[in-house]
């Protein structure tokens, strides 16, 4: 065997994936606390679907199924998708999205390490375009709900598509971002809108805490050196700056930066999605360009686009630019372009 003869103890792809999954747990806990057990059911459904789809594709492609199945990458894709879509939804929604992510976005593009587009975001985009109505039925925070949905009821809804004695509208509502957009279109003023019960101190009730938990998990990933600071910092700073600019111009129409940072997929996107190794740039400068671009597009799509949140589309758009970004941001190599004395 040729050198080197040693490896970093404990370093492996599965370890990285497991660490990222662990970093999501605080947010999942908050999700459960504020919105009930639906998220747990959809996480399980997504994981099972992802593993089944992954195993089938590995088998078809003549890969060692067990060796690759345990790398954790399929489960991570499943969790990111499950955390991005409404959890209280018929079973087929998450199954279709996850299967599409694994089969098409991941394996048809060459499998682990070769896919150009973020599989979870491809899954999200497919669902968003194919089932737009279902994708807007977000559960109401338990504290606001007249009828908190329990575990058995959630299961019942997930697999039968109906709730006994309750209308779906009674347990779901639009997201804070969606509400804001709709209300602004109705010419309501920002101050008035922000007093609606769905809004919390900074973002949405409950969702702002979940966002904070994503931030916590992201800091954990930074501390463990799983991700570098470049992408999340450039992403969040850009989003905040653009939001501050518009908020400064017209506070009545444009929400303040904190609102944008703590709603929707901003925190999840900045720390867990835009930092995806395979589909993001590899150079430090490239990561900053990528993060800033996604942050900017996120704002543009949220505020001026047709969708309530822009994380998936801004990521996918920028994924396509990654090879170009990498090619033009190569760092200076030792001994090249040295300063003359």
């Amino acid at each position, binding site marked *: 065997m040729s050198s080197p003869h040693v490896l970093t103890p404990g370093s492996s792809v599965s370890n990285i994936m497991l660490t990222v999954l662990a970093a999501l747990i605080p947010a999942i806990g908050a999700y459960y606390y504020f919105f009930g057990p639906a998220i747990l059911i959809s996480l399980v459904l997504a994981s099972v679907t992802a593993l089944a789809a992954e195993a089938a594709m590995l088998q078809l492609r003549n890969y060692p199924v067990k060796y690759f199945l345990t790398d954790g990458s399929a489960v991570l894709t499943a969790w990111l998708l499950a955390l991005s879509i409404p959890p209280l939804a018929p079973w087929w929604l998450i199954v279709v999205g996850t299967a599409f992510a694994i089969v098409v976005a991941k394996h048809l593009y060459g499998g682990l390490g070769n896919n150009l587009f973020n599989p979870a975001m491809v899954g999200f985009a497919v669902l968003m375009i194919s089932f737009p109505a279902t994708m807007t039925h977000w559960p109401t925070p338990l504290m606001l709900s007249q009828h908190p949905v329990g575990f058995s009821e959630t299961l019942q809804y997930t697999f039968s598509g109906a709730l006994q004695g309750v209308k779906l509208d009674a347990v779901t509502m639009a997201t804070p971002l969606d509400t804001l957009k709709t209300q602004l279109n109705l010419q309501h003023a920002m101050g008035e809108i922000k007093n609606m019960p769905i809004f919390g101190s900074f973002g949405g009730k409950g969702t702002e805490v979940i966002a904070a938990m994503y931030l916590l998990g992201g800091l954990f990933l930074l501390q463990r050196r799983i991700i570098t600071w470049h992408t999340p910092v450039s992403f969040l700073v850009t989003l905040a700056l653009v939001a501050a600019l518009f908020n400064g111009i017209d506070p009545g129409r444009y929400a303040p930066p904190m609102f944008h940072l703590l709603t929707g997929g901003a925190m999840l996107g900045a720390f867990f999605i835009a930092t995806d190794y395979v589909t993001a740039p590899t150079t430090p400068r490239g990561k900053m360009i990528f993060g800033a671009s996604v942050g900017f597009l996120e704002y543009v799509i949220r505020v001026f686009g047709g969708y309530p949140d822009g994380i998936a589309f801004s990521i996918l758009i920028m994924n396509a630019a990654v090879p170009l970004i990498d090619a033009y941001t190569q760092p200076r*190599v030792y001994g090249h372009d040295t300063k003359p004395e």
Partner: protein
Amino acid sequence: MRTLHKFHGGVHPPEHKTESSRLPIAAAPLPQRLVVPLRQHIGNPAIPIVKVGDHVLKGQMIGAADGFISVAVHAPTSGTVSAIELHAVPHPSGLPDLCITIEADGEDRWTERQPLDYQTADPDAVRALLRDAGIVGLGGAVFPAYVKLNPDQQKIKTLILNGAECEPWITSDDLLMRERATEIVSGVKIMAHLMQPEEVLIGIEDNKPEAIAAMQAACQGTGFAVVTAPVLYPSGGEKQLIKLLTGKEVPSGQRPINIGVLCSNTGTAYTVHRAVYHGEAVISRIITITGNVTKPQNFEALIGTPLGELVQLAGGARPDTSHFILGGPMMGFDLLNHLDAPLTKAINCVIAASPALFPPKPAAMPCIRCTQCAQACPCDLQPQELFWFSQSKNFDKARAYNLFDCIECGCCDYVCPSHIPLVSYFRYTKSEIAAQDREKMAAEQARQRFEFKQMREEREKAEKAARMAEKAATAAAAKAAAAASGVEDPITAAKQAAIQAAVERAKAKKAEAAAALPPSPQPSPAGGEGVNNTEPS
């Protein structure tokens, strides 16, 4: 305290230094038989100057330097030359090489040793002594020291003594500095005398407090500065240490001397001292025997000692030993042939490996572009890109992404969560590119030769035709003249014309020779490009 200039990346593998650094250097006993390879340095192997059956003395030259980049090799003890033949040597290829075998007579009798007063001697005489004493860089590159220690009109600003010893497990430099600091510093003084640097820096990683103290004590009053650096592999890499201590970078494709820096290993300085003060050639060195042996230790052993005997001295390898690594775990190589391969100047460590100490690498996963490798690369390369290009045999791209700046330190492999043998890919791609370049150059030369031959043949044809025409014209003129005058002898006239023609021919030939004199033929219109684009590898 001197400010250090951090180099990019680096890794910190488990050090495993204390295993072998607890005991002092032990003298290895004289073996019965010594096998001295003629190729123990970069460049041409030495030429044997003894015959089978000759009796040689300890320190006697048995192989002479062959050409510029070459040094001599010497008999490590007195005895009889029993063979000059191919023998197993410690080399990554595992191929045998030409060696001189000496049966020791047990007397260990020295040849006449001639010290040199380097301060009054001509620098060239000092360098000749270093060449004939077989002194090479003992840090691993084994480059002839006499070539390196030649300022050649370059101004040297900094002379660096490399005592970093950043590879895990190895402690031979550490122990040498602890026990023989005075001699090392004396060797550095000789180097400084030859190079006349403005400053002398001695770089040591801070996990060797005893060596640092000893070197600091030995440097009292010399003006040499001992600089300690935090442990970070590969701070002992020449380029990284230069950056660390001076903040300068060696430009790509150039040598440190181009930026006024010279870097030398502690062991080299020690041998320089022995050669100049005692007239002793390099016939021994310090080697660490460690890993899965019962009594890890450093030994001063004669060049040519079978490595197996040294492993025995360290208590022998434990039963679960799977193989042996020569050098450190980051850049060393597996000893492919038997342990009867001899100790050479380049070998500083033998690690007995076991599955427990060096677990086999798991099967490689696909690259997930995590950039751990890029963050660890001390050259600031992007190994994940180079891997991609190597895998797809996109050699032009690999070169454009500066593959040839890779120093093969192994940091990228070490951190790769997918366990991809990146350095092996890079070595393969480098050798493929080098082979392609050689082929390209050979084809280009063949084409130029062919075109030149064609040009010459055409010119000769034209000249021949011109000569014929000239001859015919002269003959006709002579005939006409003879006919016109009727007096002169037509034969004389023809002779004169022939002489004239011969003179012309000689002139033409001379001109032709002059045209062909420059070594490179005239480039043909289509030629030119591609002649100079070869890269030294």
